[in-house]
């Protein structure tokens, strides 16, 4: 269990992950031990079942959508690098990062990337648009059986109406950003580490 953790993660790998995600050394080793404890098959990758074994995630109405975000298109296994890359979206934005050199590539935890993560939860078929159907499906996931189809339909219609600006009856990523421009995304989509 624990004794394998530090031996399997090499220093070079930790450095690479640090550069890519911005997590600190100790955060990476901790998350690695979390990764190995979830990896029941002990093959260095996580499958969807491994995630579903977490009870608190299984009862989350959007649990399946969140799990899906970890797996790239068409793949069923995620390795530690991919795991960290996805978790990096939730790293808090530090002050010294805000004024970074704009030419350098955008960090994974920028405001825009956090919004992109949320956008992808809605965009089921990954075509960069949230259609009325997709919005309905996600709404249905969140409310279960407690709201009727008509009510849900009218909620979806109203939402699209307010967000859609180019009249294509679906919400693009830019329209999504516009709707949420006043929301404190940095705080609501960040998870604070204790170390």
């Amino acid at each position, binding site marked *: 269990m624990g004794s394998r953790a530090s031996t399997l993660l090499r220093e070079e790998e930790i450095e690479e992950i640090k550069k890519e995600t911005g997590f600190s050394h100790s955060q990476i080793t901790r*998350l690695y031990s979390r990764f190995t*404890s979830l990896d029941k098959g002990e093959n260095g990758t996580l499958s969807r079942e491994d995630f579903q074994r977490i*009870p608190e995630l299984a*009862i*989350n109405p959007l649990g399946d959508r969140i799990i899906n975000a970890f797996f790239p298109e068409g793949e069923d296994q995620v390795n530690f690098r991919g795991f960290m890359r996805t978790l990096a979206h*939730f790293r808090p934005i530090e002050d010294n990062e805000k004024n970074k050199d704009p030419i350098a590539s955008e960090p994974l935890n920028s405001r825009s990337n956090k919004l992109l993560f949320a956008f992808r939860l809605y965009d089921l078929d990954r075509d960069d648009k949230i259609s009325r159907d997709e919005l309905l499906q996600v709404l249905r996931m969140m409310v279960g059986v407690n709201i009727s189809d008509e009510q849900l339909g009218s909620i979806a219609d109203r939402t699209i109406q307010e967000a859609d600006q180019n009249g294509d009856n679906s919400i693009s990523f830019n329209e999504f950003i516009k709707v949420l421009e006043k929301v404190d*995304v940095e705080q609501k*989509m*960040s998870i604070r580490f204790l170390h």
Partner: protein
Amino acid sequence: MGPFLDFNPFDNLLCILLGISFTVWFTLLLVFIIVPAIFGVSFGIRRLYMKTLLKIFEWATHRIERGAKDNNHLLYKPYSNAIIAKEPTSLEEEINEIRRRGSNRDLDSASEFEMSDIFYFCRRGVESIMDDEVTKRFSAEELESWNLLTRSNYNFQHISLRLTVLWGLGVVIRYGFLLPLRMKNFLSEQVHLMCYRICVRALTAIITYHDSENKPKNGGICVANHTSPIDVIILASDGCYAMVGQIHGGLMGVIQKSMVKACPHIWFERSEVKDRHLVAKRLSDHVEDTTKLPILIFPEGTCINNTSVMMFKKGSFEIGSTVYPVAIKYDPRFGDAFWNSSQFGMVNYLLRMMSSWAIVCSVWYLPPMTREEGEDAVQFASRVKAAIARQGGLVDLLWDGGLKRGKVKDTFKEEQQKLYSKMLVGTQEDRSRS
């Protein structure tokens, strides 16, 4: 004959030495372990042993940390302590907060649904991926310091020669001395209470019993949190109980069958366990007979790693007799008593137990509790569980220990969905009113 002549004198000496040491060893065994066990007397030796071990562990941890700093290695830190800061806000509070701050509309027209609502579920979901309360209860607790057992060491590098020598010595002592000693003891016991006491000595168990005036009496039910089969030995060496449980196969089954001959225990077939009424009837029959020993039950239903108490199954609380709660807390520094039955079998587990340094634990006998007026079995069970958790310093969890092996029920997800729906629909009702 030539070559043999050279060996003869050495041979003799060796034989004599072996003979003497064996006799000495055996006598020590008799004097220090079996005799006191029969009379229930204790020497202070074990406490001294414990204190010395603790000092050695502290020194060992120091050396590791110092060594790591010198070599610029980063130490692996156990993750069972919280990794992330979780805010205990409810679904409603958070979603309202997000909406209030981020709404493009004015505050008067309450909105039904905002696209930002998703942030709450999103963050909670990823938080639970990084760190959740349940899955870590089913694996052994990780320690901050090292107790010289390889099984609990994550930084196993040869940091200093002295440490390695100490570890080597530890291995020699544990496997060459403590283990055979304990195996001999384990195999040679016969009588019930005395044999439990020897077991306790055999495992070098240093048990502190608190509040013995609350010890369970006949006709009652004794309820305790469950970490390992050793719990049974610990409680049974301080009083007689009738055990309830499933018949296991293998070594456990043999032990169970032999116990039934000595004392009227209640064993169930696995199929009978599913029939709750049958179980409840057998238990209440036993309890009504006040000459019979108190029943010992572990309501969690499975072994938990001793950092928390999980949901108590209500069956034993429906019977209606007095419940005597007992809290058992092991000191993990000396040897982890948790039995992860999905990982090791019984024999493997016993081997680990017998080659640890010691089993140190505290047992608290809590004052008896009975079901109050207007309280149902579930509420009673939670009340007892909270008392046990408080006394043992364990986390009180609502989650079911059955999650060790099975999936969580859908009803919990439906509850979350219902909560969120209320938010959407509730505001609509307000609207129609105004």
